[in-house]
């Protein structure tokens, strides 16, 4: 490297390792990093402006809501979901899976005005709401 430096006897500057890349499983922003711990988002303030009890209640509330939502995703699998999307788009499909950040839904037999797509990916940011029957 450093091709224009000519003679081959120049020793390469050493590195102790290469930069770490994305871990491929999440979008990062490790909540265990010192910076995150110190500057963590406003709603859960660890600086103690709420008392311990209200913090605990808020956290429990978040846990319950999150768990309920994840279970709802499970309940959707294999069912017909009706999606209301932007630009007055209404489609329905069988729900297969979501990705980990709830950014995309994998669906099959997506019914659209243009026809049926056997397999498709719906971008969640394009979805306004969806309904299904249990």
């Amino acid at each position: 490297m450093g091709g224009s430096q000519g003679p081959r006897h120049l020793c390469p500057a050493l590195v102790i390792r290469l930069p770490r890349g994305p871990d491929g499983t999440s979008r990062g922003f490790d909540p265990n990093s010192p910076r995150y711990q110190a500057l963590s988002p406003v709603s859960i303030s660890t600086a103690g402006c709420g008392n311990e009890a209200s913090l605990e209640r808020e956290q429990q509330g978040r846990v319950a809501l999150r768990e309920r939502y994840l279970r709802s995703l499970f309940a959707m699998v294999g069912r017909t979901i009706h999606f209301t999307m932007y630009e007055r788009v209404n489609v329905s499909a069988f729900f297969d899976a979501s990705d980990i950040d709830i950014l995309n839904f994998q669906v099959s037999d997506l019914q659209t005005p243009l026809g049926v797509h056997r397999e498709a990916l719906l971008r969640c940011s394009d979805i306004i709401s969806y309904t299904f029957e249990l």
Partner: protein
Amino acid sequence: MRPSRASLSPSPPARSLFPPHAPRFPAALRLPGAAAAAAMAMRQTPLTCSGHTRPVVDLAFSDITPYGYFLISACKDGKPMLRQGDTGDWIGTFLGHKGAVWGATLNRDATKAATAAADFTAKVWDAVSGDELITLAHKHIVKSVNFTEDSNYLLTGGQDKLLRIYDLSKPEAEPQVVSGHTSGIKKALWSSDDKQILSADDKTLRLWDRNTMTEVKAINVAMSVSSMEYVPEGEILVVTYGRTIAFHSAETLEQIKSFEAPATVNSASLHPEKEFIVAGGEDFKLYKYDYNTGEELESYKGHFGPIHCVRFSPDGELYASGSEDGTLRLWQTTVGKTYGLWKCVVPEEEGGELAKARVSLPGTAEEELEDLTSENSDSIYSSTPEVKA
């Protein structure tokens, strides 16, 4: 009146020790590590940061914070990334844009990020959690975003030829709009303690007063502006167009000086202590010039595509380049010095250090060192390294 030209690399002086392109180290080497490196005539080993899948078109550093400094990269894959500035380690990816991200910036303490994208929006992000905070709808592709020093206002500019100033405490409110550009805005920056705005389009550089929202000065530029960097200390504007790297006063827009590079330059950056300029462009190479004399000091191959952006870190110890090849590379300002992931090797320990080099330079770096295959250099990678002359 011809501006000063970058001198071509001179033919070797009487000292045959230094071949034409060997790095010349500044006379005042302050640290022992750097002095040892100079004695060794080290070869630059850039650090490649992978992760992006499409060209990297913009990058920006934060200031130095209690947690170090940070780097954000804008990519045509729509997923800008935040990295630790001194190591290039990935911290997180900002997910949400639906099109190529053309511009990215961090506020001073890297708690907020802003991005400009082809999906006609600019977004403000929490740079600690990665959450999207605000989406600002525009009428066309947004190219440039810039925070004020207090992070309270965001300046945007893009293909709709309008400058917009958003009050981030009232994101729902309409922005202040400044019109006047006659072609798409490439870059818009706050200047003079956020009292003025500098903006560049295809053919002009303009200076605006923030309070009156009126144009103070405009100058024509010979060719389409490819990049612009504002340096507050000294009120210097670094502008690139064609093969020219030009320096203008940020207050008057008068040109101070300019250099010509060997090929079309897409971006240039001025070292914080104003000793060096780095620039990169269409020939895939990075060039380092002495800012005062315009002499070309070093040049590096390494990228596999045109370089779109280069920036010095806030401490000037390294510079980052983003390329069409989808990678970011970090380069040392003083080659061989211990800093970040680079480790200075002291000549006496050469045998031992170089044996370790084999282990610490994994496969992906080998292809970058492929020209180190002469019979002399083979021994660097053998198990019983010989001491090099």
